[in-house]
């Protein structure tokens, strides 16, 4: 599985953000992150409508090893959460960029996206 998608931008904390055609952003964790975590057993996601600052924790991903916070790559409000992760958190391991998506955000400030890492820069970060 490829570590990076060309249509995403990345946070140093290993979340990806993809701008959709309708201007909303989808957020999840990367292939590198799911691989480091191991078997993901539980994903705690926020309620729709909650507002986050850039870098603020929006949830928790639990694996057999440990629990880790999830960080909002940009400021925004939650439009949707992936309810499928409730019964099948392993989707994050199996398909971190697609079926394992976590939240959809209405971005507060579109310029924030530019501040995230490019696919190339994220690749370098994760070797």
């Amino acid at each position: 599985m490829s570590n990076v998608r060309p249509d995403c931008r990345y946070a140093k904390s290993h979340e990806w953000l993809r701008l959709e055609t309708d201007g909303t952003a989808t957020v999840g964790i990367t292939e590198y992150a799911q691989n480091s975590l191991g078997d993901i057993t539980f994903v705690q996601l926020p309620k729709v409508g909650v507002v986050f600052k850039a870098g603020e924790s929006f949830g928790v991903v639990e694996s057999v090893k440990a629990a880790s916070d999830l960080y909002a790559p940009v400021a925004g409000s939650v439009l949707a959460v992936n309810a499928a992760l409730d019964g099948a958190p392993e989707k994050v391991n199996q398909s971190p960029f697609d079926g394992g998506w976590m939240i959809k955000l209405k971005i507060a400030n579109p310029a924030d996206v530019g501040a995230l890492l490019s696919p190339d820069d994220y690749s370098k970060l994760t070797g």
Partner: protein
Amino acid sequence: MSELKCTPLRDFHVAHGGRLVDFAGWEMPVQYRSILEEHKAVRRAAGLFDVSHMGEVDVRGPEAGRFLNHLVTNDVGRLYPGRVLYSPMCYTTGGVVDDLLVYLRGPEDYFLCINAANIDKDLAWIREQAAQFNVVVTDRSPDYAQLAVQGPKAPAIVQSLTAVKLELIKYYHFAEGTVAGVPCLISRTGYTGEDGFELYHPAAEARRLAEALLEAGAGLGLELAGLGARDSLRLEAGYPLYGHEITADISPLAAGLGWTVKLDKGVDFIGRAALAAEKTAGSMKRIVFFKTGDRRIVRAGSPVLGPTGEVGRVVSGTLSPILNEAIGSALVNANAVLAPLAVDIRGAKINLQLVKPPFVSLKKA
């Protein structure tokens, strides 16, 4: 900085996608594919574990049996050649030095299997206690590798590689023979709750035996399984792990292993007086097993909350991929065991449902 020890199968693990971690100073695979998938494979078909890091000790001599019956809490006198005994060995306080397996091979010839994390400590303790007995204690750990094949398909897989009639080896018994041409002590024991075998063999033959087992098991669903799955399987089976459910401060009685403490076996043993007193008075704290009905893992060290406040702490916790809920064990004040118990996970109160293990029904021999 000390280097990690490795088993003869280190390169084999890497070649098969094993993720190596430091376990008690050993470089061991925590998983290959997925802890949860490896766990399910063991319950459904079979898993192959490298447990070569475990320690092996020969105890031989005219007083070997007498010495061991003094050393451990269970009754060594019940052994006959070909039988295996599980027992803790305790300090005079009744706290546990380690839990181990005792094998009787022949007259005056015993073999012990001890935990990897405790090899040095156990050997020092055993040698000190053996001083007054006519026995010879020899550390055989470097000579042996050990592979465990565990699961309902384990007997078929091992049988295909040996002329030894495995159906004649009952649970907690062993035989010596060859498997895939490798001389083995074939032990019908294990740490998963499933039927299966632990194969003690010369360290130099480990790779050959592992490859043969993998090939023999390929069509039967055998998977390589790591220490992560080993831990979730043993917890699901309700088996103690030294350092968690049994420690220098948690006696076998407190841990629910009263059946391994034979106060009436007719000879004194180390810790007998303290354990007899604890049995009469009742343990102050007890190990309990629980499930939560929730998928959030209850981590070791978490406080256990009763009606009056903190009444204990979690000692083991994982997700059972069979039950799809968190399971674990906790050390709890004996007077709080019947009260409603809970833990706090990130602000959420999660109730503990006490369970008498095993958590799942086991089909071992």
